[in-house]
């Protein structure tokens, strides 16, 4: 336990991933959902960087791309939230159920 191996980092990443998943599936506020998605992405980043310690710099480069992607996605997603908020005055995801049977 004291010797920090790669597994420790992987476990931390897994925990963050699970927390992020719970947040996506559970919270009603759409902004919080987006933040949970950021959590997931960061867990993935941690995983990548941890493995890059063992296997070269590729992991780090990939994680830079992931961060870039996360930025773009957050921007667009928040724009959508704002557009939707103008229409319906709500940020609760379960009130947005028009596309149903």
């Amino acid at each position, binding site marked *: *336990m*004291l*010797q*920090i*191996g*790669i*597994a420790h980092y*992987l*476990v*931390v990443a*897994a*925990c*963050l*991933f699970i*927390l*992020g*998943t*719970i*947040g996506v*599936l*559970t*919270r*009603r*506020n759409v*902004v*919080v959902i987006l*933040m*949970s998605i*950021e*959590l997931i992405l*960061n867990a993935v*980043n941690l995983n990548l*960087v941890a493995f*890059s*310690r*063992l296997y070269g*710099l590729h992991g*780090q*480069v990939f*994680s*830079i*791309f992931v961060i*870039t*992607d*996360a*930025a*773009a996605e957050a*921007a*667009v997603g*928040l*724009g959508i*939230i*704002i*557009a939707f*908020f103008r229409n319906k*005055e*709500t*940020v*609760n995801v*379960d009130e947005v159920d028009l596309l149903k049977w």
Partner: protein
Amino acid sequence: MTPVATPFFFYLLSAMAVLSGLLVITRKNPVHSAIFLIVTLLSLAGLYLMLYAPFVAGVQIILYVGGIMVLFLFVIMLVNIERAEKEHRFNKQWHVATLAALLLGALFVTVYYRGTDLLAQRILPAMPESSNTQSVGTMLYGTYMLPFEIASVLLLVAIVGAVVMAKKRI
């Protein structure tokens, strides 16, 4: 540089990250969630440093915290907060959802245990002395040139998309 007190800082930073992550998903006030997310991200930056990836740590802090989280805070300000505080936090399916996610976690753990033999070594070796940033940069503009350009186009698309989304009249 010579690592010092690695286990202590590891456990500290990872506890901070996990705890903050938990708090992110359970706070009623979205601003609080955002703050705790920032804490999580900062902890992760620290973990990156411990993993001899200073560039990624720097990018994380500048981009993620300084850019994305600020954006998040702006948007939270734009949408109605008072109303959000009075509503339920969790939706109707949170029991099942939590169960499913925990199950997934259990599955991950199982996978880890099964696959420990695959990992090359558990003890991480020391890192050679070289400039991480330079190496990353060389790799970014060399091997990963195409993904780099595509990412820039992606950012352009995102900018245009965000602008279009936020306009009142198209």
